[in-house]
């Protein structure tokens, strides 16, 4: 290679790293944005640390009047004994509201729920309306009765702040699980007794106790998270061995998206120096030196490539060792990085070749690159929404950033190399087209 090509590239590199503006865009902003999410979502650990759900403020109004059927005084001593053997305190068995309260205040839920008992329903509702509390649970007065008495129904009310989704959703899930357990037992008992009645068997108190004890003794999975009926696992193959979980699992796509987005900005900004040098006269001056036009334009392109190489390398390493983000196996990561550098640099060249002067660059950055960049990395925003993911999978591939982002995701997800190569092929095609058109136009302009 002609030494002058390298001289031009290194000169541009030096100028870039002396520009606070360039440094801020290349490194500052992507790291800042990812760092912000790192901090917001509990940033203190690496790959192993889970993403901690925030605690939900739950207040409870217990209007439950209890049930004579299950109150301590109404139980036969033998039955009370057998309740105790089954792990149920006969004294509290009379009030299912209290049982529910004990459950909500148990240690196992202490990390996700902050429970307060409120005697007055009106003030409790006001607390939700004013945002002091996220959710109010109202246990109705006939709750225990509904559990124990056939034909009686009860509905617990969750009164929630409409602006919230996560906390109320968690409370609903927990309470529903508990209620389902009770409902399952009641339905079961009613079915058993109903069947017996149909078969002509007379129903008395001791039979009811027997049936109830039968349910209590049977392995009851209702309302349990440890169901024998299912085995949950993550998907194998396409998404298996995803190296990021927990906090890193959230940050990984974000950092990847920021890296792609800002690489394209850097590519265009670096290529823009062709225009600014033409305006300032240093480019025409270069053309008066004994170097072919091809040498000079190659040097300019090489500078864009080198600047991007530094940027992508720094961001990859920073994310890996500071945020604990796993990018994937070395070879795929290298290929993805090279692909991104190639595509962002040629895209910059392509865009700049259409501009008449550097003033128009503002529209390129502000409009074209921002909008296309957001479309290209929109998968970062749809991680939790499969319905939306289907759309983004297609739409994002309309822009070059989408192809780069896809390769980043595939590498992170340890996808098979064949799948990665398909998208890298797409990256190469885009790059080839951009380079061809961009160089052709620039050569014609400076002929």
């Amino acid at each position, binding site marked *: 290679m002609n030494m002058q090509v390298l001289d031009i590239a290194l000169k541009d590199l030096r100028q870039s790293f002396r520009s606070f503006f360039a440094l801020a865009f290349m490194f500052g902003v992507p790291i800042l944005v990812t760092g*912000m999410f790192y901090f917001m*979502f509990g940033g203190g650990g690496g790959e192993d640390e889970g993403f*901690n759900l925030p605690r939900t403020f739950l207040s409870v109004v217990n209007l439950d009047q209890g049930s004579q059927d299950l109150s301590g005084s109404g139980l036969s001593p033998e039955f009370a004994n057998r309740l105790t053997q089954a792990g149920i305190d006969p004294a509290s068995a009379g009030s299912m509201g209290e049982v529910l309260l004990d459950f909500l205040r148990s240690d196992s839920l202490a990390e996700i729920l902050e429970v307060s008992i409120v005697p007055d329903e009106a003030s409790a509702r006001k607390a939700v309306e004013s945002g002091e509390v996220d959710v109010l649970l109202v246990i109705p007065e006939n709750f225990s009765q509904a559990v124990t008495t056939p034909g009686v*129904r009860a509905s617990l009310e969750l*009164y929630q702040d409409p602006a919230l989704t*996560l906390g109320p959703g968690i409370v609903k899930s927990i309470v529903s699980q508990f209620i389902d357990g009770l409902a399952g037992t009641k339905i*079961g008992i009613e079915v058993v007794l109903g069947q017996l009645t149909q078969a002509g068997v007379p129903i008395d108190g001791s039979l009811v106790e027997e049936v109830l004890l039968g349910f209590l003794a049977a392995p009851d999975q209702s309302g349990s998270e440890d169901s024998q009926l299912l085995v949950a696992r993550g998907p194998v193959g396409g*998404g*298996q061995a995803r190296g990021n979980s927990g906090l890193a699992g959230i940050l990984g796509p974000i950092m990847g998206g920021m890296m792609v987005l800002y690489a394209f900005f850097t590519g265009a900004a670096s290529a823009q120096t062709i225009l600014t040098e033409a305006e300032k006269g240093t480019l025409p001056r270069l053309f008066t030196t004994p170097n072919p036009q091809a040498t000079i334009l190659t040097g300019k392109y090489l500078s864009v490539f080198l600047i991007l190489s530094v940027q992508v390398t720094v961001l990859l390493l920073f994310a890996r060792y500071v945020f604990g983000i796993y990018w994937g196996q070395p070879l795929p990561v290298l290929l993805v990085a090279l692909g991104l550098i190639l595509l962002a640099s040629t895209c910059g060249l392509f865009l700049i070749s259409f501009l008449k002067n550097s003033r128009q660059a503002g529209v390129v950055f502000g409009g074209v690159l921002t*909008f296309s960049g957001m479309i290209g990395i929109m998968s970062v925003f749809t991680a939790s929404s499969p319905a939306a993911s289907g759309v983004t999978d297609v739409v994002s591939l309309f822009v070059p950033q989408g192809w780069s982002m896809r390769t980043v995701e595939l590498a992170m997800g340890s996808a098979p190399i064949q799948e990665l190569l398909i998208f890298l092929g797409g990256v190469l095609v885009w790059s080839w087209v951009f380079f061809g058109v961009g160089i052709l136009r620039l050569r014609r302009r400076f002929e």
Partner: protein
Amino acid sequence: MRAIDLAYNDLLQILRDKQTALFLVIMPVAFTLLFGFLFGGFSARTEEDPRLPIGYLDQDGGAMADQLIRFLEASTAVRPVNLGEGDDPDEMVAQEDLAGAVIFPAGFSAALKGEQPISATVIVEEGTPAGMTALGEIRAGLNRLQSAVRAAQQAVLAYENELAFQDDSSRRRYYDEAFNKAVSAWVDPPLAVETRMARASTQPAQELDNAFAHSSPGMMAQFAIAGLIGAAGVIVQERKQGALSRLLTTSISRGEIILGHFLAMAAMVFTQFALLIVFGQLFLRLDYFSQPWATLAITVAAVLFAASLGLLLGTLAKTEDQVVIFTLVPMFVLSGLGGAWVPLEFTSRTVQTIGHFSPVAWIMDGYKNILLRGAGLTESLLPAGILLGFTALFVVLSVWRFKFE
């Protein structure tokens, strides 16, 4: 009067910059639509089922699997999708085409009735909200199924305690009848949990999951700051090109100069907010006008805050490049911390508190109070007041640091 003339002059310069139209209107509209659409903002209006899709592969063919599917069909959160021969549930979950998938192995139904049930395999990305929801719904369905099985088993046991079955087939019939009764009872269980929203707004309940209620105020706040690049740039150019020095040779006072720049920015941002609010009201079914005074209060306060921030940016920046950096960095930080992208409810209380040091959080609170909580003028006074406090702070800083030389 001279301040108004100066403001008018600033606005002319701002509006002649093509970037301004982009940042002021086009991009906030585009991103509001993008974010809102991606998170189901139109779900209430389309025919499409917005529930999370859960695929199922029935290798069993028995009644139990069928019944679970019926339970899932009745869910408000998920909808079952039958997977065909060529479908790979792992791939589909990994690619996020499905929120989850359940595989019923052969013998599942038969084993469920026995002592040693066979597990169904549930495939989810447990780290994602969609995965968690899918798993929760499948677990709930399976639990209800098992509860019905248990009821049938207990029914048989109770019968055998009192009487005796003639033969196996009558036993099976008794079991099936008990199972079917239990399953039917689950259609309308005796104990239920109902959710009510604490609000007084006119917006119908089904619109409350309108994702635009978050993305609209979020993008308004973010792009109000982004749009300050042009306005702050005018101040910088005025100083650099010597126009400011020239102004000072006229009878306009320094205070009027600052006021003029402030008014220009306020007018620009107010127009932006007005356009986006009308857009939200007409096309996104966001009822900003349900509480017009409250909306006006929040809007005016947000506009004044943004204008004061723009004034400060134009004061501190020495070059056009600095204007861009000094604008974009606060835009990212204030928007991110303030919950413009991801609602603060997903973060810890500490972060939520810290986030409220960002004025954007108060803009979000102000508008979401109106849209989702039906808040009126009284409830809007707090966020509006906080924003005015930020305004005062930034104006004082600007006046203190404004370089007239």
